[in-house]
């Protein structure tokens, strides 16, 4: 089984985001998107149980994005591919999906694993876009995933109002949630081993992706970014046996009761 995990290098969520003059996110000083660790973990669990499984981590991003791949490799897996090209900066989700799909055609996986969303953009668009590009099935927001011998993948999805079980034949794209199982922590041995694992860098030309389909030529433009006014400081009171009544007074003045 050949598995590719799509991962993203994202800015630290807790830090103040910075933007470049042309409304892009400044990507210096990032990390592997936390939610991607759940996808990496699922790939490694398959590798732990299915002999002969080969796991490749794939990212599209600026040069420092290689750090995200090293982190994924430190968790486990065999190889990594970094699509890096000056022409990529400014790409939106469709452009990123186009590049990833081109790389996936070359890597010919049986299974592509993604997170349910990135922790920065958070659009959840890329897995379904990959599936559309490749004309593959997509099983998204998996809270559970099972693979059977015959090459069928099934997932459990906790949707609003119902739990849904979905299935597809491989090859398929599966995105996983943080409910699917806690990611392992890279061991010291894993971190050392990751440094020796193959990490290839591919350009747009290597993949035959036309430069005018990605980067700033993308289908969406940002006209403006403004910081929202911070919330005004609230009133914090001690309970002192009167907490419920004080809260009721506040809710009354706000017309909630």
């Amino acid at each position, binding site marked *: 089984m050949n598995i590719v995990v799509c991962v993203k290098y994202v800015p630290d969520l*807790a830090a103040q*985001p910075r933007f470049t003059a042309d409304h892009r996110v400044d990507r210096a000083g990032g990390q592997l998107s936390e939610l991607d660790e759940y996808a990496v973990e699922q790939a490694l669990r398959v590798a732990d149980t299915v002999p002969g499984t080969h796991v490749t981590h794939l990212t599209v991003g600026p040069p420092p994005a290689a750090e995200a791949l090293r982190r994924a490799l430190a968790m486990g897996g065999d190889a990594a591919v970094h699509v890096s090209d000056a022409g990529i900066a400014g790409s*939106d989700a*469709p452009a990123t*999906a186009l590049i990833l799909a081109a790389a996936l055609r070359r890597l010919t996986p049986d299974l592509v694993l993604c997170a349910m969303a990135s*922790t*920065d953009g*958070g*659009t*959840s*668009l890329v897995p*379904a*876009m990959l*599936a*559309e590009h490749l*004309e*593959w*099935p*997509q099983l*998204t927001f998996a*809270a559970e995933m099972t693979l059977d011998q015959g090459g069928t993948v099934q997932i459990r*999805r906790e*949707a609003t*109002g*119902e*739990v*849904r*079980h*979905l*299935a*597809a034949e491989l090859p*398929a794209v599966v995105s996983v949630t*943080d409910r699917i199982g806690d990611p392992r922590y890279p061991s010291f041995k894993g971190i050392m081993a990751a440094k020796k694992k193959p990490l290839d860098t591919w350009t747009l030309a290597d993949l035959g992706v036309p430069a005018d389909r990605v980067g700033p030529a993308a*289908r*969406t433009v*940002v*006209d*403006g*970014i403004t*910081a*929202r006014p911070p*919330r005004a400081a*609230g*009133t*914090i*009171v*001690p*309970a*002192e046996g*009167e*907490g*419920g*009544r*004080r*809260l*009721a007074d*506040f*809710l009354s003045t706000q017309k*909630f*009761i």
Partner: protein
Amino acid sequence: MSDVLVLVGHLAGPVGKAGLELLTLARRLGDPVAVCAGTVDERAVETLGRYGARRIHVIESDDVREYPVAWVRALADLAAGTRPVAVLTESTPDGRETAARLSIRLDGGVLTDAVDVQPGPDGPVITQWAFAAGYTVTSRVVGGIPIIAVKSNAAVPEEAPATPMVTRSPLVLDEADRRTRVVSREPRESTGRPQLTEADIVVSGGRGLGGAEQFELIERLADALGAAVGASRAAVDAGWYAHTHQVGQTGVTVSPQLYIAVGISGAIQHRAGMQTSKTIVAVNKDAEAPIFELADYGVVGDLFEVVPQLLDEVTRRRA
């Protein structure tokens, strides 16, 4: 004016609030075409018309229940015929998934998590809140049909009665559209409470509750206020409350008039799902809990004293 396709979806009862919000926004851009399947009875037609649908297009196929990609095919077929000025879906996991595939199929552009949609000289202008709602971003689609996934509560449904034409078409899926299939569904029992994403008031409980039984306190407060119940991931992971109630980065995002956080510390992943709420109230025994940084009103104290007293007060003041 030109058509705006609105994905209302499969109907098995009254049209939901989300569909009416989408129609309200669609009217700003053109003539709304409500795209639906299932039981589109007289009542549904009346409701959709009352909120401005100029046309109701019924997909006569149960495949939309069986194959998630069927909606992509249905919308792509319609778009090929009418060249809509925009396609609107809900910004739910299902809605975004359809929007994603559709944008590739139509070679259009897609924007998710819209909190506002306005007409502009160069097509619809979409407002989003980015980076834990710290920033307001305005964007447009350039070239191709704009496909916009809209968050709930982005608009207040407004009536604008129209007499809709009802059109119907069968659905012809190709093999690739059938590759993802629904094996089974387990419907959840309705609690009778408002839906989390649609509710005006949300009362959420966290690890501070200490157990599943104690969530009854949250439910009682929610019922007294006509609110939906939310939970932190810690409470969900502990098995105290169902995951569909989880508020936050990997749960649902809510934007109610009032959000009450009880026994929740206010971790960044939780805040990501509730910090655009109009008014935020917190009850926590730790004065240093980060949730107080967001709170318009906070009570530092034991929730097992504060909440029962609040419940008594609500009952007494209502009487």
